[in-house]
């Protein structure tokens, strides 16, 4: 059964903007995602060279060695634009907030086995700095990238990274006194276990090629760190030892990683398929940063998994390699 309300119908003169029509195969009704992100990049008659980088034009695809005939092919399978992003995050934040409340109101954080709590604190709290590093990299990616179809998800990704760094901070503040954050920062700065990760993170800060930043941070580093830490460490190791409260308080992270991977895979797949040149570059970056990341995560895996560290790392790497293969690479 259906009812139909009659409304005055006026035939539109056109369905969408010409910059969008050119990219969706003609003038037809366009989605909000398409109108928000397609064909919006300024491409001609730029007035002044940037004083901060006069070797490039203000908007310049040559800031990456990747070559695309059409940058707008690099669409986000999630089809996120600001509004859908912020509404979705608001919902997820509500769940996350409810989880924090649940843990605190039932005092679950106070009944954690002390060794589990210590382990969680040692492994998770310094990672707020790694999330901040990801935020820096995605801001850099956003500011250097070419075309709205990358710029728009880039700034949302950067804000997500900041949100994660702040969730980890809240986790620390719930688990212990605020000084715990200073202790974790000291570990990040000085403890031998954290130095390879910090070293690698700082090395990503000087990458200038925006697609390499994207690959290093969003594909490789996140692609190894999130499954290792949130699937294997938090959801498996800690939970099996009575630490499910930790999993509740970090439930946003694996959820977010699943979504962000859809975007990352969507972009990489198209870039790799575009040309042998692109494929070779993406493969090289992936291999290089994968090897660095494995080395950087090894001491953290030792802390997290003890005797099982190698198995855990191997599993995660195998899973990652399979993902790369699906995207058209041999790594």
């Amino acid at each position: 059964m259906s009812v139909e309300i009659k409304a005055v119908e006026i035939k539109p003169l056109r369905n969408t903007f010409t910059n969008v029509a050119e990219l969706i195969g003609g003038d037809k009704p366009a989605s909000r995602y398409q109108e928000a992100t397609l064909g919006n990049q300024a491409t001609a008659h730029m007035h002044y060279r940037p004083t901060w980088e006069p070797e490039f034009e203000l908007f310049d695809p040559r800031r990456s060695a990747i070559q695309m005939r059409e940058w707008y092919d690099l669409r986000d399978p999630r089809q996120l634009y600001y509004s859908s992003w912020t509404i979705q995050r608001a919902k997820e934040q509500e769940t996350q907030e409810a989880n924090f409340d649940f843990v605190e109101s039932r005092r679950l954080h106070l009944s954690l086995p002390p060794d589990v709590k210590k382990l969680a604190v040692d492994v998770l709290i310094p990672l707020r700095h790694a999330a901040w590093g990801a935020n820096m990299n995605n801001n850099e990616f956003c500011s250097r990238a070419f075309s709205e179809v990358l710029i728009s998800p880039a700034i949302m990704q950067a804000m997500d990274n900041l949100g994660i760094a702040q969730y980890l901070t809240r986790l620390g503040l719930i688990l212990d006194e605020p000084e715990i954050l200073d202790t974790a920062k000291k570990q990040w700065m000085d403890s031998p276990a954290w130095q390879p990760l910090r070293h690698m993170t700082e090395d990503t800060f000087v990458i200038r090629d925006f697609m390499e930043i994207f690959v290093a941070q969003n594909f490789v580093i996140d692609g190894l760190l999130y499954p290792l830490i949130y699937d294997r460490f938090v959801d498996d190791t800690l939970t099996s030892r009575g630490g499910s409260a930790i999993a509740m308080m970090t439930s946003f992270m694996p959820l977010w990683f699943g979504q962000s991977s859809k975007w990352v895979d969507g972009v990489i797949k198209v870039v790799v398929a575009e040309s042998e040149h692109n494929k070779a570059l993406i493969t090289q970056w992936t291999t290089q940063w994968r090897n660095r990341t494995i080395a950087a995560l090894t001491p953290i895996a030792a802390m997290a998994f003890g005797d099982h560290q190698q198995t855990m790392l191997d599993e995660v790497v195998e899973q990652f390699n399979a993902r790369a293969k699906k995207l058209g690479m041999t790594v």
Partner: protein
Amino acid sequence: MDMNVSKKKLGIKERYAHMTRGLGWEPTYQPAEAVFPYDKYEGIKIHDWDKWVDPFRLTMDAYWKYQGEKDRKLYAVIEAFAQNNGHLNITDARYLSAIKLFWQGVSPLENYVVQGFARAGRHFRGEASRIACQMQAVDELRHYQTQTHSISNYNKYYNGFHSQRHMWDRVWYLSVPKSFGEDALSAGPFEFLIAISFSFEYVLTNLLFVPFMSGAAYNGDMSTVTFGFSAQSDESRHMTLGIEAIKFLLEQDPANVPIVQGWIDKWFWRGSKVLALVGMMMDYMLPKRVMSWKEAWEIYAEENGGALFRDLARYGIRPPKGWADACEAKNHISHQIWLLFYEYGGATAFHTWSPTNEELDWLSAKYPDSFDKYYRPRLEFLRDKHARGGRVYQTTLPALCTTCQIPLCFTEPGDPTKISHRETVHEGEKYVFCSGHCQEIFSNEPEKFVQSWLPVNQIYQGNCFNPDVDPTAPDFDPLKAVLEYFHYNLGRDNGDFEGSEDQQNFAKWRGQAGHN
């Protein structure tokens, strides 16, 4: 089990510090100069980034919550507007020219500064300042995208909206805001912040954003005004960032004061030129007017801006150099610009028209010192000419100011009958300016402004034709060829409002919706 229940309660400020400043660190594996390569070359000295006062203590969880709520409401209205032919509720189809101007000339700037704020949000060394900039970056993305979605429905039914992207890079009058935005983006991060956050957001927002949104409210444009209300709290955050940024820079080192003063001089003047377009919109394009440009200038620039500069005097900052001239121009610029656009109405992607008698009387009342003496007679002359079948369309191209890129149409300070004109010879080339202030901006950075892509000069050089045209063909019409290069739908996007397709369709559709 012994439970540790008496945990320290953190104050908001302390808690926020942990959520922001506490996240960063001094790099040691890479030199700080390599990680932050852009924050020294402008000469600004920062000794202690921790002195930055967080302008708004917003963490991401709260940000998502507030923004998500706002966007749910906003999109419900955009949806309802589209579903119920909300466009037929505007006061008059002439109003569409105001939104076309906003869409063509302002929305792309929102899009531009996303990258500028992301760059500042990455490259300042202080974490708190970075986060404030990042929030603005993602807010600006919001504004660009929500404007796109609000205006999408107008594009379906009316002309002039369809090729904003293509026009932005090419059309003569859009090089005014385009060069403004690119000037800011191509500057270092500190100048960018003073240009956009301070001069534009703090000093001038009330003269740009607010008039357009109030215009929408007065003229039944539910879609745009809902966006405006929804963006209001974002805009106040951006203003707070602007004032915080300038105080921080001024307090850090006395050597920063002259540099910042130079930027204030430059960006106030550049901003005031872009605002001439808003003045025209307020005085001529709104069927139901909110207030005159002169009144807006007196409240938001003279009163509020005056108080601001009195407040900044303690840092050694004086009002911008062009202040007195900009204040005098409040009696003139909206009329001068409208007359320019009216006469070049064949080359604008919005409609122009002759004001009605009632509207002329309103302008006479609002501008007692200038309108009847200088502008009313010209407007009446043009209207009479049009009535006799001779609508004036200028076809000779005007000279453009090398800095602000507005055609030379403004008059000398103190003499509203004389077009202001300046020239500088730089390395053997002659450059033209609309004012001494634009000339001085050029002289301070000639290496930058010699690069200006001036549409009129480019047209004369033959760089503004589509590749398939033959300028040597006997029937070659250069003006038509240029407008085609702009992607105008000739006769539909441009020309007088009287008789336009927009006028006819609006009348027809409103009739359909209101009668049987």
